């Protein structure tokens, strides 16, 4: 068991070291949700009326509503960013080094996933701290309760990134991921507006949002921040995590998958 623990610790530490060396990535990951929180939300506050919906017990400001969605945004963008770095790693060869380690391939990939998720969670807490400084805060226990929700959501989005990286042939194709994965996933979710609000304009869009795993990841985080369980969201997020992971492991399977197909 010891070699597994040693390898896991090294893979996570490497992700952390890479992150420390890319401070601009940390800033970019924070600036994006902060712009949404402090600029976009301020403009939309007047346009969007919110009713009382669980887990909220009272009327809330729009800024308060979108905080969990913006936590999800950090995890989503980081998941895709790590997918980009995986494609880069594969082209540069360092992915080869990882995959030739004498450990099961699933373990190596899952370890990498955990490493990337830990870094994402650090960024989420930095964002939550800044949001609290601007008066958008939760009960102290909510921050702790959100940790497992953030971990699961981060793993789900990281697994999606991993699966995508196994199907993206070249780095240049990555722009398509932005257009076809990140934006639809983010906008067709409950991150920016509640689903009942979406149903007012289009029941079809509401249904699409309702099956989007990102919606459930956001709701899982939202409820956890308010110390409540959302079991359907938990179930959906866990199911999507397993599905994306299975897809990723298939993509990196030495007997099939992209590595085998490309020259």
């Amino acid at each position, binding site marked *: 068991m*010891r*070699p*597994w623990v*040693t*390898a896991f*610790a*090294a*893979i996570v*530490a*490497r992700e952390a*070291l*890479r992150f420390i*060396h*890319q401070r601009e990535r940390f800033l970019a990951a924070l600036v994006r949700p902060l712009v949404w929180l402090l600029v976009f939300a301020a403009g939309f506050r007047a346009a969007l009326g919110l009713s009382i919906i669980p887990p909220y017990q009272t009327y809330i400001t729009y800024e308060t509503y979108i905080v969990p969605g913006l936590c999800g945004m950090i995890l989503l963008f980081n998941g895709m960013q790590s997918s980009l770095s995986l494609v880069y790693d594969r*082209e*540069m*060869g*360092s992915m*080869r*080094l*990882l*995959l*030739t*380690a*004498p*450990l*099961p391939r699933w373990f190596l990939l899952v370890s990498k996933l955990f490493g990337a998720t830990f870094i994402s969670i650090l960024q989420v807490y930095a964002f939550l701290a800044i949001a609290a400084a601007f008066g958008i805060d939760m009960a102290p226990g909510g921050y702790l309760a959100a940790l497992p929700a953030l971990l699961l959501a981060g793993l789900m989005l990281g697994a999606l990134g991993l699966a995508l990286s196994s199907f993206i042939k070249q780095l240049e194709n990555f722009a398509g991921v932005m257009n076809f994965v990140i934006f639809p996933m983010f906008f067709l979710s409950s991150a920016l507006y509640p689903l009942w609000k979406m149903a007012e304009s289009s029941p079809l869009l509401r249904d699409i949002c309702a099956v989007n795993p990102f919606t459930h990841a956001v709701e899982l985080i939202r409820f956890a921040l308010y110390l409540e369980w959302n079991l359907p969201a938990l179930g959906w997020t866990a199911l999507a995590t397993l599905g994306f992971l299975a897809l990723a492991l298939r993509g990196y399977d*030495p*007997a099939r*998958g992209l*590595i*085998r*197909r490309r*020259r």
Partner: protein
Amino acid sequence: MSLEVADLTFRYGSKTALDAVGFIVPPGRFAALLGPNGAGKSTLFGLLTRLFTAPSGRIAIAGHDMARSPRGALARMGVVFQQPTLDLDLTVRQNLAYFAALHGLAGREARSRIDAALDRLWMRERASEKTRDLNGGHRRRTEIARALLHRPSVLLLDEPTVGLDAAARTAITDHVHALARDEGLTVLWATHLTDEVANDDQLILLHQGRILADGTAHELHGATPLREWFLARTGAEA
């Protein structure tokens, strides 16, 4: 501990990249896998390192069958890939420590092996430098030092001198020859450069996915210079 490849066939769609490739590199032997660009060397390395698997054929590293015991085979194999695989933001020591950990080595044991590996390749004084600041020759030396950390029985190198100047090429080629001769390491060295092959090396000539020749280099090319012999057999430019 040897390297055995038997009846290995691999296709990219309808194109056959390797066609019933087979050879044995005995323990302590330096084998040069010589072939022009596109001969199938990189595909063979992809299979030898289990980046992907072939539907037919067999690979055994130091007695461990790659299909049945992949972890045993990978644990006994050191690899230097053609593409650079160093993390440029990390120091030489951090790169080596990361690799050591992937092979289950940590703490004092890892540190002493890293020091020994760096000493052997005259890289100890560079241990704290970021690999981004190293020249091509030193980066390759770092990769070779790294590939030896877990004391493999078989060392695979895929065109390791690409992009290096003449002095660095000679130093690295000589060093790996010495590893086979003095330390009993089994070496498979893929190249398209005939001047990297010594007269008493095992020479495996790969062309269009097939083994055209396999034997001791000087016995194969005889009085004909190796470069001319190679060109005549493959019609390629060396």
